[in-house]
Each structure stands twice: as structure tokens, then as C-alpha cells.
């Protein structure tokens, strides 16, 4: 077996029963999503005859292109180097076409009819840097083994495009039905909040579930789950911000304060609510899946996953249902009230996610250090005893990379970074193997060791 042609360890144990089952579930979930999207689009178009309905129908092709491009792109990294480039180009073309088509659909059928394409573009541009900042922060939260950008971006893209498309029909139908049946007021607000919490979190959570099922090697624990979940939430928040900003601009512009209304939305959703809103809610779903990843019993796994969804739905519900109980004054004190409201209503949930994250990081670090010590004790030369304190600390790892940069410039910096990353990968692989929660064969671990030894030759002492 040639290890040089593989970028990741060779295929997992062909006799494992876990893999086909996992992939089977993933295919079933994906099929349900596709059927739901098609049905939603057709029903919207036929029965609602509204702008979102048309968007949903014409956007279907864009969603299909993005889904296909995403699949090819993600799988490209598990192929050999020779064919990877070809698959990445295919994925890039499909993703580009899908994105352009989606933007066109949005511009033409939604925002052009209300605020115009220029306003829509400006709103999207305003939300891009903040969302990018959010993704950067979320990815960096994983201090020991950062998730690949391609998966973080896939998660965000799902949240922005697929999840928003999935909920249009359900929420519209729910709202139209309840508006005709219920007494307006807090009861109706509660009903709408149940709909938003349930439908939106299920739509966003599907992305995290698919990542959990398909990309198991990049979904290690609770920390990874929180990162992916928050990324999906940030993507959803991006699209929702653009939609609300353009809509409110169109509503209030004839009164002379369209930009004020849009700017207020931008601040509320992209600054104040960047981490407090959707990112927090969906992070709980990821946390549940991440904990389930490492639990030994099926019953515990099921409880953990259900718990993640339940917390996300409740957190989302509480904001939507009870935000009207915290009215904002139109005085200067209103500015303070807005911040206090977010802090009081969503703060406890965000604090709970941070607590899970910190505990997860600590737990992961303990496991990795233990495995690094065991690997160093083998004398294989992949991890040296004196390297363990450095590898265990993100700051010391950074200092080591900077020292390499001073010695040999950027190439040396990246070589050391690759070495550190591979060492942590090996420790992670060992950790999962010791816990019996991995279906990759021992040869995969050997391939990692081989790669590490090669990297060590390249890195100057």
C-alpha cells in the first residue's frame, strides 16, 4: 500500500458495520431533505402565490447545484491527489453557479420588488464581514485541532441557503393557519415561536446531523459539534439578516428612515446577536451530537442528541415568544435596554454553550496529552517527550511556529504548523482508538506515523 497518494488515512475497516449504516442514515436524511425542498417549493408556488413561493421554486435549481457541489467538494478531499484537483474544480464550478443563481433569484424575486437589487447587495455586503468574523472566531474556539475551512464553510452555506429554503413553506403555512384560527396576542406569539423554534432548528440541525454521519473523521467531540453548529447558525443568521434588513428598508424608506431601520437590524443581528442568536441555538445541537459521538451506549447517544435539539428549540422559542415582554423605550435609555434584553434573554444560553465548550476543550486536551505521552513512550519518534508541553498549549505552539518563521520565513512556519497538526491528528486518532469509537483500521494510524516521520525530515530542528 502506498501511503503517499493518500491525504488522509486509507479507507476504514471494510468489515465495519458502522460505516454502511451511518451512510445509509445520511442518504435517507438527505433524500428527505430533497423531497421536502421540492414539495415545499411546488406547494409554495401553487398555493401561496407569494414572492417567497416563487423564490423557493426558482431557487430549487440553485439549491440542487450547491448541494451537488458541496458533496463533490467535501468528498474530493478523501480522494487521491491525482483526481482531487479535478473534483475540486467541478465542485467550485457547481458552487459558483449555484451561488450566482441563488443571488439572482433573491435579487429578482424578493429584494428587487421591495428594496431593489442595490439595497440588497449593500445589505449582503454589510453582513459579510461580521459573519466572516463570527466564523473565524467560532473556528478558532477549537484550540487543539481546528476544523477544516471547507467543512465550516459548508456548514455556514447550508445554514444560509438550504435551511432557509427548508423552512419557508412550513413557517408560511403555520403562520397563515394560526393567523386565521388563533386570538392575536401572546397566544399567537407563542404558537409562532413554537413554529420558529421547531422548524428552524430542525432545518439547521439537519446539516450538523449530516456532518456527524458523513464526516466522522472531522467530527471528533463536543468541541467540533459546537463549532459546526455555530457555523450553521451564523450562515442562517446571515441570510435572515439580509432578508430583514431589505424588508424593513422597503417598509420604512417612504417614511424617510429606511437606512436607519436597516442599520438597526444590522446592529441587532450582526453585532449584538451574532453569537447570541442562531449561533448559540444550533451550537447546542452540535454539542448534543458531539457528546453522543463519544458515549458508549446507544440509549445515551439518543438522549444526548435529543437533548441538544430540545435545548436549541427551547432557547429559540424563549426569544421569539417572550421578546415582546421586554419592550424598548424610544428614549436614549432604549439603547441600554436593547443590550440588557439580549443579555438577559439569550445570555444564559450562550453561557451554557461556553461552559460545555470549555469543559469539552479541557476534556479533549487531557485525552490528547495522555495519548501524546503514550506515543512518545513508544519511541517511534513521531512525538518527542519534550514536544508534549508545546503541543498541549496553543500559545506555545504559536511561539514555536513564530520561532520557525524567524529562522526560515513562511515556508518554515507552515512546515512546523503541518507537523504540529499531524501530531495532534495522531494523538486524536489514538484517543478515539483507545475509547473504541473509531472504525478506521490500525493501518490508518500507521499511515499517520509515516507521514509524521516524513514531515519531521522536512522541518529544521
Amino acid at each position: 500500500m502506498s501511503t503517499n497518494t493518500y491525504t488522509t488515512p486509507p479507507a476504514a475497516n471494510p468489515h465495519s458495520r458502522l460505516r454502511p449504516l451511518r451512510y445509509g442514515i445520511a442518504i435517507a436524511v438527505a433524500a428527505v431533505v430533497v423531497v421536502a425542498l421540492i414539495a415545499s417549493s411546488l406547494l409554495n408556488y401553487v398555493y401561496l402565490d407569494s414572492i417567497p413561493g416563487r423564490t423557493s421554486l426558482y431557487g430549487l435549481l440553485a439549491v440542487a447545484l450547491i448541494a451537488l457541489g458541496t458533496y463533490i467538494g467535501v468528498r474530493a478531499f478523501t480522494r487521491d491527489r491525482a483526481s482531487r484537483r479535478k473534483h475540486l474544480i467541478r465542485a467550485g464550478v457547481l458552487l459558483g453557479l449555484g451561488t450566482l443563481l441563488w443571488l439572482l433569484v433573491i435579487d429578482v424575486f424578493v429584494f428587487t420588488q421591495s428594496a431593489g437589487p442595490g439595497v440588497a447587495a449593500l445589505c449582503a455586503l454589510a453582513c459579510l464581514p461580521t459573519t466572516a468574523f463570527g466564523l473565524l472566531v467560532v473556528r478558532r474556539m477549537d484550540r487543539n485541532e481546528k476544523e477544516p475551512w471547507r467543512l465550516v464553510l459548508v456548514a455556514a452555506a447550508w445554514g444560509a441557503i438550504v435551511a432557509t429554503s427548508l423552512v419557508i413553506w412550513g413557517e408560511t403555512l403555520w403562520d397563515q393557519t394560526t393567523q386565521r384560527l388563533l386570538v392575536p396576542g401572546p397566544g399567537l406569539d407563542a404558537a409562532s415561536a413554537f413554529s420558529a423554534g421547531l422548524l428552524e432548528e430542525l432545518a439547521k440541525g439537519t446539516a450538523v446531523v449530516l456532518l456527524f454521519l458523513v464526516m466522522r473523521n472531522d467530527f471528533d467531540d463536543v468541541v467540533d459539534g459546537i463549532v459546526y453548529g455555530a457555523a450553521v447558525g451564523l450562515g442562517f443568521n446571515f441570510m435572515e439578516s439580509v432578508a430583514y434588513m431589505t424588508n424593513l428598508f422597503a417598509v420604512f424608506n417612504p417614511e424617510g428612515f429606511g437606512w436607519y431601520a436597516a442599520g438597526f437590524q444590522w446592529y441587532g443581528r450582526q453585532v449584538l446577536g451574532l453569537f447570541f442568536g442562531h449561533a448559540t441555538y444550533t451550537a447546542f445541537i452540535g454539542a448534543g451530537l458531539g457528546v453522543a459521538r463519544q458515549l458508549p451506549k446507544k440509549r445515551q447517544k439518543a438522549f444526548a442528541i435529543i437533548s441538544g435539539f430540545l435545548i436549541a428549540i427551547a432557547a429559540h422559542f424563549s426569544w421569539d415568544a417572550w421578546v415582546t415582554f421586554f419592550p424598548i423605550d424610544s428614549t436614549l435609555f432604549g439603547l441600554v435596554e436593547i443590550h440588557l434584553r439580549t443579555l438577559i434573554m439569550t445570555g444564559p444560553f450562550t453561557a451554557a454553550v461556553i461552559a460545555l465548550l470549555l469543559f469539552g476543550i479541557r476534556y479533549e486536551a487531557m485525552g490528547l496529552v495522555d495519548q501524546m505521552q503514550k506515543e512518545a513512550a513508544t519511541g517511534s519518534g513521531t512525538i518527542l517527550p519534550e514536544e508534549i508541553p508545546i503541543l498541549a498549549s496553543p500559545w506555545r505552539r504559536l511561539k514555536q511556529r513564530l520561532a520557525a518563521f524567524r529562522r526560515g520565513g513562511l515556508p518554515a512556519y507552515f512546515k512546523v504548523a503541518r507537523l504540529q497538526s499531524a501530531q495532534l491528528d495522531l494523538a486524536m486518532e489514538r484517543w478515539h482508538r483507545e475509547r473504541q469509537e473509531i472504525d478506521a483500521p490500525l493501518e490508518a494510524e500507521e499511515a499517520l506515523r509515516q507521514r509524521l516521520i516524513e514531515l519531521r525530515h522536512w522541518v529544521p530542528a
Partner: protein
Amino acid sequence: MRSVAFDQTSVTLTTRGQSIRLSPCVTTEAYDQILTLYRTLLVFATVAGVILAVGLVEFVYFEPPGQTSGARARIVGVFEYDPASGQLVGSDRASFTRNQAFAAKVSWLGLPGDITVDARWYDTFGNVVGRVGPSTPSKLGDNSIVPVVVPPGLHHNLPGHYTFVVERLQNGVPVEVLARRIVLVER
């Protein structure tokens, strides 16, 4: 002769004629920290369950089951409205432009005299933008026209769907919609 056999969880002492198996009183298995995370998650999920239950109670309080009195109010129509004269203009319509004032006309006749009712307009954001009542139908007899009021600071109505409802109240809380109309204010 004495032999000692070890396995992972117990020690067996064997002497002539007897064999004693000694089990440790404290488990030697290390506590897996993932269980702490799992239990924390379960605690959070319990709190989440309480939140959703409170939401359900809130829903039932404001939307109590079995509140069907059988009474039905009649909305004569929604018309363009002249605020200066307080009169309705033209015919019943389902949509208006932003700068058109409009109002609903309600017939209180036929409603039981002992119930408390009101009539309200809700704008697309769920704000009350016009109201008559609460009172008994007989006392509201003269107040049959319910106009939409432009909110302070605005020049025209905001676009979107406006919902007009005639509600029955109990202890000050609306518990039943006796009639409903939805109209559109165009962009």
C-alpha cells in the same frame, strides 16, 4: 500450596481446600469525563423542557380550549375612510395603498348582551393600530366604525397584512375571535 490468580476486576486466593475470590470494594475503572458532559446536557435539557412547558401553559392561558360561545359577530366590510368626516367611502375592499386611510365596519347586532367584546386592528408587526371597546355589544352599538390609526411619527400606514378581529374577552383577556378580516396594504 497457595496460588494467586489475577484478572481485571478481582483477585482469587486459593489455599488447600478452599478458594476465595476477593472483589475490590472500589471500582478500578477510571471515571469517564464524557459522562459529566452528558449529565450537564441532560440538566440543560430538563431546563429546556421546563421552558417549553411554560410556553405551552402560556399558550393555553391565552388560547384556552373550549372557548366557543357560538356567538358570531358580523363585519360589514373594510372601506376607505375619511378621517375628517369620520365617514366610510366606496365599497368593501381587500387591499389599500399606503396613503389610503381605511376602517372596518362592525355590526354588533345579534351578539348576546352579557358578553364583553372589543374590536382591534393589528398591523403586520402585530401592533394594535386601532381599537374599539372593550364593552358590551349594546354599549358599543354606536361605535361600529373602527379606523386604522397611523402610528405616531409615521406619515402613512406601514405596508403588509392587517388583521381586524372582533374578540370576546373574559377577565380582561381575549379568549375567542368572533369575526376576522385580513386586508393588504400594498408597498
